[in-house]
């Protein structure tokens, strides 16, 4: 997994061996039944067959050289796809290993004592109950309905540390193929046979039944239209060529042009060079590689459409806790009331918190130690102490020690305790409490024997680097909205500190859903993460819903992606991968079309300079001969596909920035580059092929 701080999506490098290994697959894909899905390459193949026939009937070195390179063009295109698929296959093999044929102990009813029978895992149906004990493999996807267990999920997440799965709550989902390490759980199966998580993952990474995404379909239409135009331009050129030859009877026949017009081999060469073969060859590889990049980051997308939508997201809903802030609030200051020393307050706060096992309580003890040098004491150390643990009802904790009664807790609860003890909290306390609340902190009041000592300032701690991250998002045109259960004041303070654009405070699942609907109403695409069952409606409503793998089955079903690492920050990376996917397609399309200019400058003079010598002025590359010009263009056209396979798999470099800047950069690189590179490439190839017999 790449580090989020770089803000850049990296990618695997292409292993040259992989090209060789994918070759058999590439050859298999020559089957027209497979190739018809890719009309551009199908035309190249038809052209290759046609020129092969011509070369057999009228053999020449030039004709055969063209034939070979036309076939290579198709093979290279297939190779690109095969390499992309090949990487997925390697992953699929690992996954399959996890999906060993297991047997299941099926229960008649969801109790451990129920009668059980042993069935093969593939026979399990949704609603079946199975019991899994330590050392056994969970036979299918489902929810834990009874028990708690530690589970080794390394088979799917690659993470070796075991995770806890328990009934009820948001950690109830288990995945087939993972292994129970301790204890015993009863699982209700939720998957249909053959549609388990691992099955879907295998299908995804192998690129099997990959659905084309809307943008891919649209691009395919554009490429088809361009192909038709060039087909028409090439075919209709023939009567014009025949005429031109006819009115210049003094010109001898050439390998490119005779009385029957441009020769078939050259005509096909021109067509193949003009139609957008580069992007046509790489388009499906780009799509597969995009999915693959997600999988490498342990994200499973249920559809390519979701990945594409991720690039379009304009609103990101992020849960505060765990995504924007570290999990919990921490003590940040002790604010004593008048007449109380800070040290005294710190000591009381520490005492009152020793029995508070919540993270907030722990942070008070830690802070007292760090800031005031108070040694941490274990509850057992103070023998006479009577501990008052924190409960949700009392909302305070404390200790009765040697006649001292110390409490700390929510302001209202502690004040009431003070008043009940006959104390009179001053207004000053109220001011302190309000001040901390207003700044987004959480105030906890510390009191002793009917007297308020001061207030503990608890603060949410925003994760490092989040502000930069959100600034980046803003530059990309993405609005970030923080979702929190906190009150609006607290929420605003954290929102300001983290640099999000907006926040939704005191959010209920209904609020979340309403917010998504509102954003979508305005035409925005919304992405969010969620794990709980109550997130499911919002996950389903959002355009990109990333469910945490630790979450419930309901959440995972509702979302269209699952993050196996359960890392909510990853949403940002998903967006970047989505964008990179689209950019790669656009860039290579531009490159492909821009290439045509140079090819015309190579082929048109090669075809017609014989009849109209003036057209040799278009031979700006000064290519050696008509044959070498045409062959060089065809070779360049084929070689550029292979040269761009790594780029297609890796995706073009993406740095979050404004649309305008991105466009400029990509235009210069792939537009201008696309115009210039083939001039150089074709010239270099010409310098080599001129030495071939019958070419120079």
């Amino acid at each position: 997994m790449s580090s989020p701080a770089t803000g850049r999506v990296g990618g695997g490098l292409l292993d040259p061996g992989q090209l060789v290994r994918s070759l058999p697959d590439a050859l298999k894909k020559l089957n027209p039944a497979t190739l018809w899905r890719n009309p551009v390459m199908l035309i190249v193949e038809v052209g290759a067959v046609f020129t092969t026939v011509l070369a057999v009937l009228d053999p020449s070195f030039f004709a055969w050289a063209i034939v070979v390179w036309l076939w290579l063009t198709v093979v290279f295109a297939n190779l690109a796809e095969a390499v992309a698929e090949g990487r997925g296959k390697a992953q699929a093999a690992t996954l399959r290993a996890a999906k060993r044929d297991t047997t299941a102990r099926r229960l008649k009813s969801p109790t451990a004592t129920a009668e059980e029978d042993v069935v093969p895992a593939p026979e399990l149906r949704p609603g079946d109950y199975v019991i899994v004990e330590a050392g056994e493999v969970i036979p299918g996807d489902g929810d834990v309905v009874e028990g708690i267990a530690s589970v080794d999920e390394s088979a799917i997440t690659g993470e070796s540390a075991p995770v806890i799965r328990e009934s009820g709550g948001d950690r109830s989902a288990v995945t087939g193929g993972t292994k129970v390490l301790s204890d015993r759980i009863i699982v209700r199966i939720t998957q249909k046979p053959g549609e388990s998580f691992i099955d879907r993952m295998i299908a995804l990474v192998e690129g099997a039944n990959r659905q084309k995404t809307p943008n891919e379909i649209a691009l395919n239409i554009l490429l088809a239209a361009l192909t038709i135009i060039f087909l028409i331009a090439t075919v209709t050129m023939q009567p014009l060529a025949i005429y031109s030859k006819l009115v210049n009877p003094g010109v001898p026949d050439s390998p490119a042009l005779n009385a029957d017009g441009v020769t078939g081999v050259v005509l096909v060469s021109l067509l193949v060079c003009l139609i957008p073969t580069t992007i046509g060859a790489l388009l499906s590889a780009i799509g597969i590689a995009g999915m693959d990049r997600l999988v490498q980051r342990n994200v499973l997308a249920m559809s390519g459409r979701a990945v594409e939508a991720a690039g379009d997201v304009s609103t990101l809903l992020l849960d505060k806790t765990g995504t924007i802030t570290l999990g919990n609030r921490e003590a940040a200051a002790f604010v004593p009331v008048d007449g109380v020393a800070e040290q005294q307050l710190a000591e009381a706060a520490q005492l009152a918190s020793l029995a508070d096992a919540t993270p907030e309580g722990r942070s008070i003890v830690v802070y007292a130690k760090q800031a005031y040098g108070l040694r941490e004491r274990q509850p057992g150390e103070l023998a006479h102490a009577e501990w008052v643990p924190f409960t949700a009802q009392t909302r305070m904790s404390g200790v009765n020690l040697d006649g001292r009664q110390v409490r700390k807790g929510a302001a209202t609860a502690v004040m009431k305790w003070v008043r009940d003890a006959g104390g009179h909290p001053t207004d000053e306390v109220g001011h302190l409490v309000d001040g901390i609340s207003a700044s987004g902190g959480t105030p906890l009041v510390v009191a002793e024997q009917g007297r308020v000592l001061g207030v503990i300032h608890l603060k949410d701690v925003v994760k490092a680097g989040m502000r930069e991250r959100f600034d980046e998002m803003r530059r990309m045109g993405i609005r970030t909205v923080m979702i929190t259960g906190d009150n609006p004041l607290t929420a605003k303070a954290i929102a300001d500190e983290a640099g999000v654009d907006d926040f939704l405070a005191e959010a209920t699942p209904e609020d979340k859903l309403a917010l998504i609907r509102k954003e979508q109403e305005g035409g925005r695409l919304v992405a969010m993460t969620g794990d709980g069952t109550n997130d499911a409606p919002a996950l389903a409503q959002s355009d990109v819903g990333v469910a945490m793998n630790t979450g419930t089955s309901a959440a995972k079903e509702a979302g269209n992606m699952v993050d196996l690492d359960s890392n909510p920050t990853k949403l940002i990376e998903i967006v970047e991968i989505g964008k990179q996917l689209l950019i790669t397609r656009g860039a290579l399309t531009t490159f492909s079309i821009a290439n045509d200019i140079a090819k015309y400058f190579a082929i048109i003079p090669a075809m017609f300079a014989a009849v109209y010598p003036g057209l040799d002025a278009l031979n700006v590359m000064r290519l050696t001969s008509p044959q070498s010009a045409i062959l060089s263009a065809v070779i360049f056209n084929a070689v550029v596909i292979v040269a761009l396979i790594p780029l297609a798999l890796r995706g073009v470099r993406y740095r979050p920035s404004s649309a305008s800047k991105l466009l400029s950069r990509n235009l210069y690189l792939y537009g201008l580059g696309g115009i210039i590179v083939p001039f150089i490439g074709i010239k270099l190839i010409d310098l080599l092929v001129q030495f071939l017999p019958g070419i120079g």
Partner: protein
Amino acid sequence: MSATAAGMLFIASLVLAMVLVHRPFGDYMYRVHTSVRHNVAERVVYRLLGVRADVEQSWGVYARSLLAFSVLSILVVYGIQRLQDKLPLSLGRPPVTDHVAWNTAISFVTNTNWQAYSGESTMGHLTQMAALAVQNFVSAAVGMAVAIALVRGFARRRSGTLGNFWVDLVRSSVRILLPIAFVGALVLVAGGLIQNFSGVHEITTLTGGTQSITGGPVASQEAIKELGTNGGGFYNANSAHPFENATAWTNWLEIFLILVIPFALPRTFGRMVGQVRQGYAIVAVMGIIALASVLLTNAFELGGDATVPRAVGAAAEGKEVRFGVPDSATFAAATTLTSTGATGSAHDSYTPFGGLMTMFNMMLGEVAPGGVGSGLYGMLILAVITVFVAGLMVGRTPEYLGKKIGPREIKLASSYFLVTPALVLTGTAFAMGSAEQRASMLNGGAHGLSEVLYAFTSASNNNGSAFAGLTVNTPWYDVATGLCMVFGRFLPIILVLALAGSLAAQSPVPEGAGTLPTYRPQFVGMVIGVTIILVALTFLPALALGPIAEGLS
């Protein structure tokens, strides 16, 4: 002042005039097409038509109304030509032959005004004014209606309708075209254009010879011929004829009329979509291409780089003394950059590269600035295609003016830009493949090929000008160019309306930092690049064997 300097001033003055009228006239057309009130005259017209002016139409109904109107227009124009001998003001001329009448009816209804006939010897006055000139108005109004419907598609949100065709047709005709044509016609008469109903009268020349001079309602037709980017001349020589274009300043005025609506409509577009800067971007694309083309055409003609112009000392063949070489070149560029096709000089005799420019202008798809309405919708289609490629390059599903460019939109836009090249190239190939059709060429070699290529380029792009050496009043050419005109006009219109329908139904995506800004110079440059590269790639082989081969010999 040198001819070159005067020519540059001529161009500069036209640019200045366009800049000055762009805003007020564009705003006027915006008000016409967004006003909810019908004036008295219009209410009378709607009652006569039996249409409910306030009922909005879906794209399908809009298209069917448009097609019904156009089909009936073709029938009526055909009928009047065939019956002209029985109608008044026929000047005793016989009915127009069937294939010429068919070709001419299509030609005028499609805003092409390709002329397979010679005006002064074929058409009676009534045919000219009641059949042909009427179509000069309404075919332009149809183009404008389609453009406005497309703009509504961009401007509306979640709407099932695009407006009412009859209202758009009538308003474009009555509120925009008619008043300007009326004033323009009178100014042109002041410049020397004739406006009468006299027939042919014979005069004795100074040296005792005879000349038959044909009168007619010329100025009224000339004004709308240019304003509606139609181009069908009253006389065979078209705007080179002194009765159609009497002086150097009527020449300026006619070019102004040709350009004024196409260059102002982007303002209307900007107003209607609520972002004038989007209109400025579109007009910038049109203006830059047009200016470059005008300057290049001037440069090639002034350079006179071909054997005959070098022998002559100037590219003077086919050009009038009163206009001179540069202003003739400017007219030629303006008439081909728009779908006008009126000619102030003989394009066939232009230098190879000057002639190439006129052809290339049309091959752009008549978008810079193009015909009335058709220029705007053509340019918006190119913008959609550009947005698609550029949009992908910024990592988002492409969107233009908040509307997503998805598979359906791309399907319609790609089909649009497939139509004309397919017609041009197929037509040219069929003609060039047949010795019989090649016999229509006046010139030989590469230039003969240019004549045929020009004919099909002109017909398919609804321009109407010609390398007039080609003999086209044969049944084969009448049918072939007729088919090119009718498909070249109505297939794109149907696709545009379908696209408009699909866009109107969308709810717009709000603009953000991640949205591709479509109003910056960057985008303007990109649309220009896409337009020129697509055209160059499509037509380079054909051009190489025609004007380029001729020019590089």
